[in-house]
């Protein structure tokens, strides 16, 4: 198993109280596999990403659980070693290429830097590899453009650059946090295509974090739905999309617009996410759940494993 997240708990200790951004999440991802973490913004999915790469910043803290990566518990690894793991084995793409590239350095420099960080490469060679990676992700005349600054790049181009930086060092885990959210629809497709292609080429495991179920089908074998810091459902993508079990998943899928659908109005999920610093006693979705029962408000449902390998956290399936 490449990555095994086991009962991960990441809390933020703020002045307003303890915010349980990630509260007992477990999942696993093997080499070459791909998985999506789906959820509304604020549900803790990005915190999972940060927990995996060991960059949960003050006042956040991993308070429980393990993150096994290549058999090593990353929560116990010293920062210096953690940095090496990140540099050698992980590739990241973030949501907003506008702000994630440093405005003060050239594109090539920032890509090359990522190669240098992995170690074992000379500066000149790193630059060449950076240019090659940029070509690989489809940036024309990469040698020239590598000398340009981020503000001279379009959003899509910047995102390609980020992917180039990630793949240039052939990571074993590729984490993409909302990689297309900030982009135009047409560009989105290109970028998704690029991610899929590169993932297959390098046989990298992919952890895709998104709120957009629409893109999950194209990229990931499995999908996990997150709600208020917890996983509520995990299933092969196809099954999830065709037959969501959890009422939240259903609501979420209902929100995905389908081309050709004639619906006058897009359905929405009513209500809002509970305050992570002040969680209800029972099921966290109970307040918004159309099928909520008394027990749902009393007790927190456990994850239930179904025979077909699916997992769901709901009393409806008990």
């Amino acid at each position: 198993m490449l990555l095994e997240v086991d009962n991960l708990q990441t809390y933020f200790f703020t002045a307003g109280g303890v915010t349980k951004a990630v509260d007992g999440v477990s999942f696993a991802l093997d080499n070459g596999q791909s998985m999506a973490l789906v959820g509304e913004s604020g549900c803790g999915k990005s915190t999972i990403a940060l927990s995996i790469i060991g960059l949960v910043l003050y006042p956040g803290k991993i308070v429980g659980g393990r993150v096994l990566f290549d058999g090593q518990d990353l929560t116990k690894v010293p920062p210096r070693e953690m940095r090496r793991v990140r540099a050698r084995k992980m590739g990241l793409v973030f949501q907003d290429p506008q702000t994630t590239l440093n405005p003060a350095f050239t594109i090539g420099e920032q890509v090359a830097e990522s190669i240098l960080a992995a170690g074992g490469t000379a500066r000149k060679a790193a630059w060449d590899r950076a240019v090659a990676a940029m070509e690989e992700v489809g940036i024309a005349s990469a040698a020239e453009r590598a000398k340009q600054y981020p503000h001279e790049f379009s959003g899509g181009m910047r995102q390609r650059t980020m992917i180039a930086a990630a793949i240039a060092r052939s990571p074993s885990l590729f984490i993409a946090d909302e990689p297309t959210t900030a982009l135009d629809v047409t560009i989105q497709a290109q970028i998704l295509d690029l991610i899929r292609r590169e993932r297959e080429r390098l046989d990298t495991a992919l952890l895709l974090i998104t709120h957009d179920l629409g893109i999950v089908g194209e990229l990931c074998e499995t999908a996990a739905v997150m709600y208020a810091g917890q996983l509520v459902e995990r299933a092969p993508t196809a099954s999830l999309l065709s037959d969501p079990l959890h009422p939240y998943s259903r609501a979420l899928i209902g929100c995905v617009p389908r081309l050709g659908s004639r619906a006058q109005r897009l359905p929405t999920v009513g209500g809002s996410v509970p305050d992570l610093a002040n969680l209800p006693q029972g099921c966290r979705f109970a307040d918004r759940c159309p099928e909520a029962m008394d027990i749902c408000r009393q007790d927190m449902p456990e994850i239930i494993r179904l025979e077909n390998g699916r997992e769901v956290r709901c009393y409806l399936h008990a």
Partner: protein
Amino acid sequence: MSTVELGLRTEAARRPTGLREFARSFCRNRLAVIGAVLILFFIGMALAAPWIAPHSPTETNLDRRLQAPFWAPGGSYDHPLGCDHLGRDLISRIVYGSRVSILIAVVVVSLTMLIGLVTGLLAGYFGGLLDAFISRIVDVLLAFPFLIFALAVTAALGPGLVNMILALVFKGWVEFCRVVRAETMSAKASDYVLAARSVGLSNVRILVGEILPNVVPSLIVLGTFNMAVVIIAESSLSFLGLGVQPPTPAWGSMVNDGRPYMLNAWWISTFPGVAVAALVLSINLMGEGLRDALDPRLRD
């Protein structure tokens, strides 16, 4: 302010920004509360000076000239911090001095902030000729040594408290204007202002609603520091002959008055100096707390 969906801010720190929230957030910063309490203490001291001060701040008694603090040889508990060069009780002068010093700091900083804010916002937001005009004035004033100003103002109006405040304001607003202008310009280019503009919000609403909140944090930091600078400037100005006029006690002038006695009666200028430092420290602690509480970005 586009942010990466990385949980830190968006997931963990979304809270309404009401007055109560602000107060709560401020109160949780222990140092800031200490600062605020100290400031209240100083203000209380200023208000209650006649009841607190053991002696008159202006009553001279040449028999007690340069009397040392109580622990030093020659000191007495009657004048715990000793007496100055005219035998006036030092602690009483410090207590009364808080009135003048706080008044000067508050008046000067509010005036400079206000002028700097308005001119900076206008110059930064509208740009063009207005900006060029304001910027050139700012440049000229900045390039002009303060000493000359102070002397010119005294020359034109004579030395005194009001004129000193005028001199400080005349030059002080410039720094605020520069900072506000720069912040305004960068805020103006940001997405949310573009968005606000595209929605068709009026200039005033954009300035007050969108840009001002971004300017305020740096303004407060600068302002709290300037309080300190102003209190100290008062002593530099008395060094140059534009201080608060005797026998009115003011901390800055007291520090300066004690200058010739540094070798043989260090307390005359040291204790007022300590008072300045304590006030400045508390202003600053509170300022930091204010900034953190005001700026949702910096809140944790």
